[in-house]
């Protein structure tokens, strides 16, 4: 049945209904959406309770994880374990970024849909949804930064981790940090794409994914202790190179997580340990592949969610 058109509207203010309003301002709009998403993410994460509880949540958790690992290392490794303290402290500290970035970004989708019920309103706004999510992820990483810095400081000041600021390879630190954090956002987008397709019971998926990465990326033990196929998986993961690069930049000459005699890296590339250049290159390549794949998966997930009506489908709806 086709409805008959009703009476035509008269006296319409042409300026108010200016057709140019349907056109966006491109990059300016994208930047504005990104900035406000970062601000929103920060407010939601940092403003939800008083500073003391915020400290407990974002600092004490990673710090206590690092301390547990250090104690375990001392008990198992004895005096030899002290040489591995920087290794454990760096890997453990950096994991706060991974949890906040990978899991946090996916949780943004679930929280906005299930808890705040605003996902559909954000989605039907002109803001690019992917940009908004990336902004939220950056905010989460910012929250994680406090935990990283304090864990490293405690490692140096209280646990005697030998740190010489004059020996830090700053260019490498900047390069691997930028590429590594971009890769974390990429992995977060991947999980967000997965969580768009699921419902409330998927809160644990991102954490489980981050936990699996914890095992294969050399965060707290060298890859060489893992079976060769698992080492290969680790070598294909950008986080492995990010952690290895950060260790090498902060503590040059310290134990590495990627190579070593008998490692998959050594047998593949013919030398025991990767150079700084190789680490940055490997991080660039794996990070780019993962990020592009994540964007593609996210776009596919977005299309499927729109096709199947998942953006406002909450648990029990």
């Amino acid at each position, binding site marked *: 049945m086709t409805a008959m058109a*009703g009476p035509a*509207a008269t006296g319409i203010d042409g300026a108010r*209904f200016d057709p140019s309003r*349907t056109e966006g301002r491109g990059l300016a709009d994208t930047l504005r959406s990104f900035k*406000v998403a970062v601000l929103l993410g920060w407010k939601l994460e940092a403003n939800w309770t008083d500073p003391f509880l915020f400290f407990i949540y974002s600092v004490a958790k990673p710090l206590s994880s690092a301390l547990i690992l250090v104690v375990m290392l001392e008990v198992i490794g004895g005096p030899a374990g002290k040489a591995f303290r920087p290794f454990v402290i760096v890997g453990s500290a950096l994991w706060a970024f991974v949890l906040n970035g990978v899991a946090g970004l996916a949780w943004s989708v679930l929280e906005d849909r299930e808890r705040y019920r605003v996902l559909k309103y954000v989605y039907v706004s002109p803001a690019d949804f992917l940009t908004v999510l990336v902004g939220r992820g950056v905010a989460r990483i910012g929250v994680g930064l406090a935990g990283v810095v304090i864990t490293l400081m405690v490692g140096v000041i209280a646990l005697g981790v030998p740190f010489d600021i004059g020996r830090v390879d700053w260019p490498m630190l900047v390069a691997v940090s930028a590429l590594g954090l971009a890769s974390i956002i990429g992995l977060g987008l991947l999980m967000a794409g997965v969580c768009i397709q699921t*419902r409330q019971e998927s809160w644990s998926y991102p954490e489980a994914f981050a936990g699996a990465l914890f095992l294969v990326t050399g965060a707290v033990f060298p890859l060489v202790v893992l079976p060769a196929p698992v080492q290969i998986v680790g070598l294909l993961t950008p986080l492995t190179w990010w952690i290895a690069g950060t260790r090498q930049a902060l503590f040059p000459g310290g134990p590495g997580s990627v190579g070593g005699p008998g490692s998959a890296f050594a047998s593949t590339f013919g030398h025991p340990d990767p150079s700084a250049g190789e680490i940055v290159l490997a991080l660039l390549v794996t990070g780019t592949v993962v990020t592009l794949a994540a964007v593609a998966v996210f776009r596919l997930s977005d299309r499927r969610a*729109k096709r199947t*009506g998942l953006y406002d489908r909450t648990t029990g709806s």
Partner: protein
Amino acid sequence: MPALAIEVRGVRRVYSSKKAPIVALDGIDLEVPTGEFFGLLGPNGAGKTTLIKILTTLLSPSSGTASVFGFDVEKDTKKIRRIMNMVAGGEQSGYGILSVREQLWMFTQFYGLAGAEGWRRVDELIEAVGLAEQRLQRVSTLSTGQRQKMNLARGLLNDPWILFLDEPTLGLDVAAARSLRELIVEWRAAVPGRTILLTTHYMAEADELCERIAIVDHGRILAIGSPDELKRRVQRESIFRIELDRLEGGAQALGRLPGVVSATAAAGNEADTDRQSVVMNLVLEDDGALGRVVGDLADRGSHILGLRKSEPTLEDVFVELVGRGFDEAGTDEPGPSAEAIA
């Protein structure tokens, strides 16, 4: 500006489910002119919300085409999103830890308003919807009615050409619902050309607000027209209840007048011996016959104490079209196990 705000052609939407596919929209055709207050009226599960989701680019149709101000909902999503907005009822949406002001400002940024302009717009709308006292309050502390007013303000942030309202007064108490309806009417009246598509299953709300209404059930439009046109579908005669101080010649005398279909004493009238008046039900061929009745009564020396036209309701229209009432008609929206069949 296009003459049509909404144009829907053969839109079909099917959800898969474990039992059997659910047809939410079954080939809808619809045109809504620019500037109209249009309503979709139907029970739960009729397909109203599904149509709004498609028009607001939240959901893809399984087949058919739909456009908003000439922009295709599948191809021109960004353009549509800049000139429309939506507000849904029956939900507690909002970032609870943000203040009302912060919450609204966030959305101004998603709509591309400059920072200062965004704050100005937020403050204007907070004032307009009557939340000035709550502007710095956290969203989580707002009452249901206040939260819905905030959501309405959010829906108006981008000064939309068209506003989609999906059961906006659902779950509100009578006063809050009335207040919200008044705000909606005021907003639309302020600028000619603003279009509203309202879905509701409250008949009185649709009757009060909408210029035209489509009655929807099981994914189909059963009837469309102004509330008066729809009511006339079920009542072709005019029915009046008239109270007189006395009536010479009885009801039969009135029943013989031209244009009068029937004239009967109202139920219980004869038994009420204390009554000092006579109450009659008059069924007339049309309103024009009323003049003749009034003239005849004056000639007989009767004085009219009261006169009320008996109107059919939109529920009567629905019952006439569907063969059952709203309460019997409702089915749930597709549940968690239901997914779309593209």
